[in-house]
């Protein structure tokens, strides 16, 4: 009948969807299938290595303990940021985000430098680093929800005779519940699959599923055990995700939605003291590890330009490789993730989104390990190819690109395209004139975060980086694994460089994001 040929349009849609699908099939599904095949078929079959029970138990309880401690540490700050208007509030919001974007290797290096001798490796170091790392999740998610709770609901309860505790328990807490369970689930997932922190701070005998996969594959060359553990990790992550979404569904949506501007108020009376205490404590916790890291690095900057037995290149060159690989990875992630987002945004948010976000849960270490065993035979023998590094990093970053770009695309009123069409814009022109400018900002934010994530990526990169082209996290890890103050100092110096680049990229992205939606 009328309108533009639907067959042609569908063909175009399929072509757009095919690029990310093919990329995911080759670099995600295929390595995963290789792990599956290796785990199920080689000698021994699907038999769990000895000690797996203890491994699983430690992985779970350290994640649970980390989550509880993070909630306890993050809630006061969420209260401060979600309820009050004070000078430096937006600075506080930005500072809280800094640990979250810091690479795990940097955080681990900082806590090695911070904690007193005897405590710098072990469970306490792990918990402290996890809290430091994830406090942003609780603060931003719960604080954000808190700032949209209409104060009228609490006032109504007060008029009906409810005291402060009653109001907190029966009015505020139920409205915060979805945000609380969401941030707890995220924190649990992050700490359950934590790799760099545990590998570096765990010390001997402290291994989780994630680090044990690395140990078996890269140190003991027991690929079969590594594959079996990967499968176990996959199942465990699936269970965690399922429980998380179940919790989220039961909590239901937050009831009252108010404008942030009408909720925030100046603190009065004792609130001022409490607020000051919370902010001071937070500043100490957030700044101290980084300050100690910088101090540890002092006196070692000159060594960055000297050859060292730990690396095949001069240390500063790792920064060059890092930036080059991360730029390329960000570009790949933008193309693949952007096209995936365009495809996903054509239908309402739902199950397909989860599929694309799977790499996020499947863990970087598993990805790196999958690369190791999938691409080792012709015609797919890429083991010595430099580009495996940016490809692996882009897979870790792409889900974040989708997360940022797809909602932006979905939020575009379809009538804008229709208006453009009735004003004479062909579909491609309408996309360029309407969609692209409206999501341009989201793309810029996604580029910044993809770059920051790729730069700090450790779990997958450590498997595929070549010795003569180390990235910063890999180089830091090498230095930390060697004895002597000079090696520790060099690690700290490189960690400062890495942190500096990542924070600049993330702050630039955050600045772009301001005014339109939240990046996190």
């Amino acid at each position, binding site marked *: *009948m*009328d*309108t*533009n040929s*639907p067959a042609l349009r569908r063909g175009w849609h399929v072509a757009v969807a095919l690029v990310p699908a093919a990329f995911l099939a080759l670099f995600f599904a295929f390595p995963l299938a290789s792990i599956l095949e290796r785990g199920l078929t080689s000698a021994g079959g699907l038999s769990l290595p000895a000690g797996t029970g203890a491994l699983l138990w430690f992985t779970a309880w350290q994640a649970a303990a980390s989550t509880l401690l993070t909630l306890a540490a993050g809630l006061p700050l969420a209260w401060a940021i979600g309820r009050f208007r004070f000078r430096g509030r937006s600075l506080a919001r930005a500072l809280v985000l800094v640990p979250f974007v810091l690479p795990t290797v940097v955080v681990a290096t900082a806590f090695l430098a911070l904690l007193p001798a005897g405590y710098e490796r072990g469970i306490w170091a792990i918990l402290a680093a996890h809290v430091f790392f994830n406090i942003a999740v609780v603060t931003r998610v719960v604080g954000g929800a808190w700032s949209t709770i209409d104060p009228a609901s609490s006032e109504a309860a007060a008029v009906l005779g409810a005291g402060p505790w009653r109001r907190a328990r029966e009015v505020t807490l139920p409205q915060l519940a979805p945000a609380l369970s969401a941030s707890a689930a995220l924190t649990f997932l992050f700490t359950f699959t934590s790799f760099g922190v545990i590998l570096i701070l765990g010390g001997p005998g402290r291994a989780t599923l994630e680090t044990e996969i690395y140990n078996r594959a890269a140190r003991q060359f027991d690929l079969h055990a590594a594959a079996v553990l990967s499968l176990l990790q996959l199942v465990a992550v699936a269970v965690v995700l399922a429980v998380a979404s179940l919790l989220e569904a039961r909590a239901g949506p937050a009831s009252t939605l108010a404008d942030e501007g009408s909720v925030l108020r100046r603190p009065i009376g004792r609130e001022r003291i409490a607020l000051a205490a919370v902010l001071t404590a937070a500043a100490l916790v957030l700044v101290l590890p980084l300050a100690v890291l910088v101090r540890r690095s002092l006196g070692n900057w000159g060594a960055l330009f000297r050859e060292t037995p730990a690396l095949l290149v001069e240390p500063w060159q790792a920064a060059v490789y890092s930036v080059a690989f991360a730029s390329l990875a960000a570009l790949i992630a933008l193309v693949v993730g952007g096209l995936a987002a365009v495809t996903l945004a054509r239908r309402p948010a739902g199950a397909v989104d989860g599929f694309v976000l799977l790499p996020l849960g499947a863990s970087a270490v598993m990805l790196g390990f999958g690369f190791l065993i999938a691409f080792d035979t012709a015609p797919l023998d890429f083991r010595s190819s430099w580009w495996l590094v940016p490809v692996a990093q882009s897979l870790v970053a792409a889900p974040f690109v989708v997360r940022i770009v797809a909602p932006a695309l979905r939020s575009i*009123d379809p*009538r*804008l395209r*229709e*208006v*453009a*069409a*009735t*004003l*004479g*814009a*062909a*579909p491609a*022109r*309408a996309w360029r*004139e*309407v969609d692209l*400018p*409206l999501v341009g900002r989201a793309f810029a934010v996604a580029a910044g975060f993809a770059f920051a994530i790729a730069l700090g990526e450790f779990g997958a990169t450590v498997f595929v980086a070549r010795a003569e082209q180390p990235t910063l996290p890999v180089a830091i890890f090498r230095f930390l694994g060697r004895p002597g103050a000079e090696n520790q100092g060099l690690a700290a110096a490189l960690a400062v460089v890495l942190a500096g680049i990542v924070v600049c990229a993330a702050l630039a992205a955050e600045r772009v994001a301001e005014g339109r939606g939240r990046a996190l």
Partner: protein
Amino acid sequence: MLSVRGARVAMGGHEALAGVDLDVERGTTVAVLGPSGSGKSTLLRAIAGLQRLDDGSVTLGGRSLAGVPPHRREIGLMFQDDALFPHRDVAANVSFGLRMQGVAPPAAAARVAELLDLVGLGGREHRRVASLSGGERKRVALARALAPSPQVLLLDEPLGALDRALHDRLVTELRGLFDEIRQTAVYVTHDVAEAFAVGTQVAVMREGMIAQVATPERLWAAPADAWVARFIGLTNIDERGGTSFVTRPEGVVFRSDASGDALVISSHRDGPVVTLCARYDDGREIVSAHTGLAPLTPGARVSVEIDPAAVVEVPTTIAREAPHPSAGDAVG
């Protein structure tokens, strides 16, 4: 000018359009009036090319629009919530269609200024759209739709969600503007007063079909059936099987009469018009409308006089598939 023939659209198992015929003469405005869900927006989207027709045709100036995509139809569209481009200022919104036509920037700027003058926003080229008031947004949306000189302008409930005073003022302005520039327009609304104010012709839609097309005057004088009469606000309907008798309220007079057979039960004023409702002793109700002051108040006993010329005999319902002859009095 614009002609729709046998338009059908099936949506999720039911027919949003069940065979619509509609003609719009050059320089006139047809108001498409119907309750929500009657298919009027679907009809508009089909004319614009945003909705595929399952059957039937749309022709513009004798040219079939089958297979012509929306951006080549030379048909303008204005939405209820304006759909202004949030990332462009007023001038860039208005000039969008001109740029698509390849109009040179100086000529486009002149045309933008001319249109902003026309809609009463002269000199506001560089305002950000986020800073506009509701009325200003409407004016920008209108200027943007008119800028490429569309052969037909479609308006989808353009004045919904406005406060009443602004709404009434804009209705009057729109009517005057369409007359001034002799714009051919199709105006969709669910508001009877708005349709009567803006339409040269009013097309009443029901369940995906046009029930009647007529001038507002003719519609009031001779509704096609009891449903149309009730929908346009004629409530004095006496259904007797297949035939109904519709009495226009201005032909009904209540006389104060202690031995009358009806009791006034309500009275309300809307501007110069007073509407009274009375209940007969047998339970039937009848409405009377007149101008001037109202001496009768609820509780007054009255006798009812009806002007025979104000009574019209109509079918209770027109047949669903074959339109009743009286429904076609303005079609074609």
